């Protein structure tokens, strides 16, 4: 299971950011969401969501080995081990790992899929991998 994005369908409402922070941090604060939407206005006039592609780069570069792949495929951060150094934030190819002054660890997508439930335009949807494509192709498919 993955999250697939289609920028052409995104209307920039940020409900995905809202529900992400609520689900994962019990907090109303879009700055604690593990995805982002780039608004390209006034020109060309387009929203582009970016979500975790499960590429695993964060786990590779983490000097504390605080990021591990879970059963659902998500790369989860261990808050006890993460020292918020930010190496993964810099390494993330789609820049969807965040830091927030309230938190002592980084914010990474948990694949809770709540963003896909509330997205009402089809811009962010659950996506079941049909076969087993190459890793790079999968990242492309995920729409980044």
């Amino acid at each position, binding site marked *: 299971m993955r999250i697939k994005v289609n920028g*052409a*369908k*995104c*209307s*920039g*409402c*940020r*409900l995905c950011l*809202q*529900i992400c922070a*609520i689900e994962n941090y*019990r*907090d*109303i*604060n*879009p*700055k*604690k969401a593990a995805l982002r939407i*780039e*608004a390209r*206005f*006034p*020109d*060309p*006039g*387009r*929203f582009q969501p970016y979500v975790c592609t499960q590429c695993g780069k964060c786990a590779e570069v983490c000097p504390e080995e605080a990021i591990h792949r879970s059963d659902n495929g998500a790369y989860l951060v261990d808050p006890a081990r993460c020292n918020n150094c930010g190496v993964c934030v810099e390494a993330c190819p789609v820049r969807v790992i965040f830091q*927030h*002054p*309230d938190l002592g660890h980084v914010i990474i997508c948990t694949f809770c899929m709540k963003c896909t*439930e*509330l997205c*009402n*335009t089809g811009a962010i949807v659950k996506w079941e991998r049909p076969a087993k494509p190459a890793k790079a192709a999968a990242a492309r498919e995920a729409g980044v």
Partner: protein
Amino acid sequence: MADGLAGTTLRINLKTGAIRRLPTDEALFRRWQGGRGVVAKLIYDEVPRDADPLGPKNIFIICAGVMSGAFIPAGSKVGFGSVSPLTNGHGDSNMGGHLGPALKFAGYDLVVFEDISPRPVYLYIDDDTVQLRDASKYWGMRSLACEKALKEDLGQDFEVATIGPAGENGVLFSCITHDFGRQAGRTGQGTVMGSKKLKAVCVRGSKSLRVHDLEALKKQVTGIMLRTQKHPNMEPWQKYGTAFFIQWSNQNAVIPAYNFQTTYYEDTSKIDGDQLVEKCLITHKACFGCWMNCGKYTRAVIPGKPEVHLEGPEYETGALCGSNLGMKDINHVAYLNWLLDDLGMDSMSGGGVIGFAMECFERGLITEADLEGHPLRWGSVDDVEHFLEMVASRRGIGDWFAQGSKRAARKIGRGSEKFAMQVKGQEMSGYDGRWAPGMLLSYMTADIGAHHNRSWTITVDMAEGRESVEGRAKIVVYLQHIRPLFDTWCICRLFWGELDVTPEEIVESLNHITGWGVSLEEVLRTSEMIWNLNRCHYLERNLADGRTFDYPPARSWEDKIPSGPGKGKGLSREQVEQMLDEYYAARGWDSRGNPTRAVLEDLGLADAADNLEKIGRLGEPIPGGIPKVRGEKYKPKAF
């Protein structure tokens, strides 16, 4: 910090540059429910009655409301308020987008600007950093260019609201623009910003918003959103937004055409929602937290002119700058929408003023000589572009129209007052009320002049009889209490009418957010309190009986609708008077339209009654007493 509130109020003296941080007064927010309620109370208490709306004694308020930013359907709005230079009464206007939530996430519920800055400034807020910064670099820029420049200079994640040249130059219907197409357009709030030399407000916030019961809120709101995803209105709404109603309004004989001369437009199919989607749409664009995405980000392409990008036209602009001006191409309507946005003028009052000027031109009351050698013909986008440049810069007779159609008609005279389509100085929204009596009454009695967001009754009029006026006043009173509540809470109201989310559900959300434990009846009472306070404010500033201000232009009863499905229909003067009589009775006001002590004291506004008494405008006691319940619920259908 109280639940639902960000916790801090800013008081900014623009003359001295002093910025004070105060804890937000929860009691004020609870009693007045935030948004336009808090605005109404503050300007009533703080602005002297003889103060010039564009002078140093007026205050300018930004209020984010108790629900803006919270996890709530379309909790996106932000309210602006001050004494209106257009109506000389209570003025408020709100807009969607992302500014209100950003303000809350930065930690602020309310910003009150006092006095006038000696030089152009903008307000910079980045969480705890609050500064008035020099705006000389941006002064003179058009609205959209200014927003782009500020975002490039400060960061794309800043939410920015700006005014354009019209606001700087004192055009009385200037708007505030945000998010490249969202406007607080009505009552001249952009004009007040300009008078204070405040060019822009830029906000970025990263804090959390605490609510009373997050789990309950999450469950309830998620349920509403998932339920309404399947609502039959969702698909057309997402596809067209409010432009869907251009055809509906034409079919039902309420669309204004040729400056409200008729209610049928023969070329509707050239400017409707289908045309917008087919020819102009770039992307759907939603406000914060909204799953209906009614905003349409578009392009206007006209040979010989640069391609421009805008948000809209929505219904109101589509009607007032489309059929009302005889435009025959959706690109032309979109271009005028962009032009008004970019110059910084309300596209509703703007459409009304242009339509009025076009009819004056058609009748020979203004000529090409007055218009620097240019004509002003129905359907000509070039003519309008030149006219709007005159208005925005207040050149020549552009200065008359820059003051709105009511004041322009006084200058022009020769019977033009009859077709200056405004009440209290504010131009009508995009519905003709001649065959929709409740709608006309809504315009006549709205606290900010002829605006539809206070009460919209067309489906009620259609159901109850479009030629009868009996009983309509009570329904208008009820709607005037419930519809403005959404502006008070700073959330959108469209999902109420279109997706059948009930007011009771919203009040439940409000209680999850604030913990106030209020009922719908209580907040409706608050809304009535706001309504009566604004009425008192209007009378205290304008010093005459209320009834004298409540008349629409004489076209509303003298001219029957000349064409289309409403041909031959119209109201009589007697019916207009009857509606006012019924309305005042339903409100507990006297027949002069002045609030009575009984109703004001019932609402906890004894001070306002004293103030009215001092100026000799307190209503006479009503024989038999005031109605216990003011207003009557009707199954609403809202825009």
